[in-house]
């Protein structure tokens, strides 16, 4: 029964915020923090109670092929925890950050819509409903990228909106073809019907979906919009976009559709590996040449999505464990890095690494947490990024994909290289910075500290006893090809 509230709470909060807030943003802050806090509690509750079970919620009291259903299994509650955790820290970071812009209450309303869209995409069991919630999230994302009202931000938002609507149209086309060939929109029914349909249809639809969701998750040939959009948005929004949006709309949808509906066809798994490794290498190489801190982080996101996709493509149990773990880890450390970049931008008024300097003395929290995040993303023990990358590399070796393992190792080394550059110039430079435009508020500091602590704590998830309770059910959901159909349809 908690599933509909995952969507109702943020939607209601969004409309209440537009109703009651005037020029002041106090009520908007209170409402949105309350909403996200309750969402996080619900998500954690569902994550720890779901286990291997699957709960179905049928809308409007009708039965499954006729109605929209919401599905809660280990994978969706895992993603819900990530989304709402990052959303909470992002809100904490926003409170003082967003006051530099005009009419901040609009920001909170749009933020709530963004969460509505992502929660909806994760919770839904209906493929057209997935499309609708995706559009809600993207619509809010376009508006939030343009929130700063500067020329660059409008440009990035326009580019993002054009790319986003091309990919949405492709996804709608795929949904239409699926409906025409299976006469149903419920994902589990589609999966059951597809076993009797000509496999040509599956391949065509899968190719269309790969292009559509590939654009959403910015895999390498489809990545052009991401560095602009993610670097132009306000910092808390960059962290939402890079940390969770491309995963909820891109990677999660890819997992659901390619593993649970299409049953992981081997051709596409190979394609995932190829695209993933291209993303890892090329995006890391492009990141090396960036001097804009947020742009560097955005390119890094593409390369880390490549790691996740590589893990999904290898397709063994271990590799998927690594991919799932890396989804969580990347959400945590990339959001943290974007908060650091936002804090530096707020204090110094620049994102250019060459204009930064030694921040160790003046901004100890930012420098310290950015060091932790850097060590995680670069894959050094005992931080979480090390374990997920290590698992993916070991899985690649075990599955006899030696070339991909080498690519992953090279990718990690390149990651280390460009983050050393960012640290060297951005936080430990030669010039001592003495002038600051604004101090970093308590909310921003605590958001950074929470995520930095999580960077270390989440690496505990890999300990066998804890892993069986948390990550293994998620892997089971992904790996079990007929389990999703059985769980939802009850046969």
């Amino acid at each position: 029964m908690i599933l509909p509230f995952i969507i109702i709470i943020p939607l209601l909060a969004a409309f209440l915020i537009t109703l009651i807030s005037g020029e002041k943003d106090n009520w908007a802050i209170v409402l949105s923090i309350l909403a996200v806090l309750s969402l996080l509690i619900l998500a954690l509750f569902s994550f720890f109670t779901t286990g291997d079970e699957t709960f179905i919620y049928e809308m409007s009291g009708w039965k499954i092929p006729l109605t929209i259903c919401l599905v809660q299994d280990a994978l969706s509650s895992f993603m819900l925890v990530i989304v709402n955790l990052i959303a909470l820290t992002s809100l904490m970071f926003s409170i003082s950050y967003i006051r530099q812009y005009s009419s901040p209450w609009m920001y909170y309303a749009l933020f709530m819509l963004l969460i509505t869209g992502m929660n909806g995409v994760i919770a839904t069991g209906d493929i057209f409903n997935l499309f609708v919630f995706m559009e809600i999230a993207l619509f809010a994302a376009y508006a939030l990228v343009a929130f700063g009202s500067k020329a660059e931000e409008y440009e990035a938002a326009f580019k993002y909106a054009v790319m986003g609507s091309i990919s949405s149209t492709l996804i709608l086309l795929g949904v239409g073809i699926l409906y025409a060939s299976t006469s149903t929109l419920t994902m589990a029914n589609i999966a059951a019907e597809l076993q009797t349909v000509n496999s040509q249809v599956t391949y065509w639809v899968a190719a269309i979906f790969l292009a559509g969701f590939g654009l959403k998750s910015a895999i390498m040939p489809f990545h052009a919009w991401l560095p602009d959009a993610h670097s132009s948005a306000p910092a808390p929004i960059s962290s939402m976009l890079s940390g969770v949006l491309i995963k909820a709309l891109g990677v999660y949808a890819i997992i659901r559709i390619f593993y649970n509906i299409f049953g992981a066809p081997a051709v596409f798994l190979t394609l995932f590996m190829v695209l993933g490794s291209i993303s890892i290498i090329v995006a890391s190489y492009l990141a090396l040449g960036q001097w804009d801190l947020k742009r560097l982080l955005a390119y890094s996101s593409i390369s880390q999505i490549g790691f996740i996709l590589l893990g999904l493509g290898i397709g063994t149990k271990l590799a998927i464990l690594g991919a799932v773990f890396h989804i969580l880890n990347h959400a945590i450390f990339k959001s943290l890095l974007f908060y650091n970049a936002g804090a530096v931008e707020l204090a110094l008024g620049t994102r250019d690494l060459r204009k930064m300097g030694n921040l160790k003395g003046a901004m100890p929290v930012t420098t310290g947490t950015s060091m932790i995040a850097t060590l995680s993303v670069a894959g050094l023990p005992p931080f979480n990024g090390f374990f997920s990358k290590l698992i993916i590399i070991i899985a690649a070796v075990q599955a006899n994909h030696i070339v991909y393992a080498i690519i992953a190792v090279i990718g990690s080394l390149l990651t280390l290289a460009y983050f050393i550059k960012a640290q060297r110039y951005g936080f430990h430079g030669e010039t001592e910075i003495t002038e600051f435009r604004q101090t970093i508020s308590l909310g921003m500091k605590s958001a950074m500290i929470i995520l930095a602590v999580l960077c270390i704590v989440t690496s505990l998830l890999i300990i066998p006893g804890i892993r069986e309770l948390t990550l293994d059910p998620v892997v089971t959901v992904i790996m079990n090809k007929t389990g999703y159909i059985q769980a939802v349809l009850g046969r």
Partner: protein
Amino acid sequence: MTVYVLCFILLLVGLYGALTKRDLIKIILSLSIMGYAVNLMIILFAYRTDGSFAILVKEGSNPNMVDPLPQALILTSIVIELGITAMLVALAIRLFQQYKTFDITKIRRLSG
């Protein structure tokens, strides 16, 4: 089959326009064309020759009716397209205010 191919060609026309045109307004129009092509295709999937409205089919009679569900889907997707188009137009107006042009080759403050 021909109508589906024609719809797909319409989709490709829209895609071509969105990717090659240099004018912001033309890009927005091309995106709309793409959306309409897909909408048309889904409506055609539901079409039955000589079918009747679902609401007029009597219970127990031969149900040769047009599938009503895609029409609901299309209505939803039209609403979404309306929202996205409004958003894009607003962004285009703002871009015009900033750059005094609709030409995307001149709107290049962000690099690569």
